[in-house]
């Protein structure tokens, strides 16, 4: 996850009442047979404990055992969604700050229980109740409006690429930063922070492509941002649009490969 999302410790909390029916409808629509099975068969053997870096880094705090972190799902189901904001705040603290969905516990679980998928489901549930880390919420808004997490407009993006080309060409004569070049072999994508804060990264990559003699291009349309922060707050719809944008660009330009550097 890029730093702007994790650094923000305040979160966007909606003051509105929790609606149990809405929670249950949400869970019913999302909880497949897999989730129900996992909640039922976990033998609480504890083998997942010391596979978790949060557990190890907290001085082996039992509350950090992966199997324990997903108890919320079972509790919410038992309570038929009748939980309050304070309860959801506890869920929030666990699913965002005590698990980063690395899936290492799953590799050591005798049943292969996918804890990260359940954490993601809980994040998605919190999203439906408007509880999202502020940094992520902002990024998601930017994706929806501008197609990238930093709200870079198409004009700014193209202009940045153009002056990057100008400056770099002073050093390497003949260097080009191709934009929307049909039939290029590689379509290159970046983290949207690069045009905002680190244009030198774009220049350096252009130098490498130039010297290597690669046939490459940047797309001008949305799809050039390789990050997908919507995925981190389990906003599946937006996450899908972001990926589709990249695929659309690749299709239109007829490239053979998409390079994702994030």
């Amino acid at each position: 996850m890029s730093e702007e999302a994790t650094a923000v410790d305040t979160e966007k909390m909606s003051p509105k009442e929790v609606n149990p029916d809405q929670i249950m409808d949400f869970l019913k629509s999302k909880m497949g047979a897999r989730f129900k099975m996992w909640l039922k068969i976990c033998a609480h053997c504890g083998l997942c404990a010391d596979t978790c870096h949060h557990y190890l880094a907290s001085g082996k705090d039992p509350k950090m055992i992966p199997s324990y972190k997903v108890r919320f799902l079972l509790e919410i189901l038992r309570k038929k969604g009748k939980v309050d904001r304070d309860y959801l705040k506890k869920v929030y603290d666990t699913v965002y700050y005590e698990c980063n969905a690395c899936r290492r516990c799953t590799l050591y679980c005798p049943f292969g229980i996918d804890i990260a998928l359940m954490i993601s489901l809980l994040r998605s549930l919190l999203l439906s109740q408007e509880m999202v880390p502020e940094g992520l919420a902002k990024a998601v808004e930017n994706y929806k409006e501008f197609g990238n997490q930093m709200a870079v407009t198409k004009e700014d993006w193209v202009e940045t690429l153009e002056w990057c080309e100008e400056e770099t060409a002073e050093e390497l004569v003949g260097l080009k930063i191709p934009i929307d070049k049909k039939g290029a072999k590689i379509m290159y994508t970046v983290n949207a922070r690069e045009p905002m804060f680190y244009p030198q990264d774009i220049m350096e990559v252009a130098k490498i492509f130039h010297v290597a003699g690669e046939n490459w291009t940047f797309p001008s349309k949305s799809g050039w941002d390789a990050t997908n922060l919507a995925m981190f707050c389990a906003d599946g719809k937006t996450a899908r649009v972001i990926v589709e944008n990249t695929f659309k660009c690749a299709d239109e330009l007829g490239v053979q490969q998409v390079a994702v550097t994030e």
Partner: protein
Amino acid sequence: MDFFSFVEGPLLWIAFFTFILGSLIRVALFLSMSRKMDKIVYQHFSWKYIFATLGRWLLPLNRDVVKNPIFTTLGYVFHICLVIVPIWLSGHITLWEESRFEWSWTSIPDGLADWMTLIFLCIALFFLLRRIFSANIRLISTFSDYSLLVVTALPFLSGYFVTHGTLDNVAFLGDNMQLIHMLTGELMLILIPFTKLFHFILFFFSRGVTAVEFGRRGYSI
């Protein structure tokens, strides 16, 4: 019909039927629900990854063997004894031979069965003590974790007592050990489809769906 005959006859039928029918129904429910709700598993379905994961985890070829060798060994031995002793015990096979089915198969030596039972009970006791005394495991343990361990161990404990007459001089227990053995065995059979003991089937489904999930990214677990 006295209570003993009921436990020996009708209740045994009820127990086996509950176990078999309950298991079949639960599998059917899982499959029909997953077909509707877990489409992604079917979209990326791959026997290759499923067989790979089952092979690794049914045999001790997985990463837990390296990371937690002692606990993993105990887990394997526990389950091997749990499955082998009741099915291949000569005393049980004799009953199948005498039954209306007249089924028969080779038994394991009684001495081996004795040792396997004792080892099984020691491991069960260790699991129980670990659950009670380890702060980690205690926090995540639920009532069913404790009680199902006891439910699983009781048929073995009472079976050992029946075979060896250990408690024959103790009032009530001595006279009724065979009854207790049958009752605890039947209780366990009946509980299997309704509790997490059903992992004897769901193990395969759970490993399978996760193997597919990791497999679609080219990683075999």
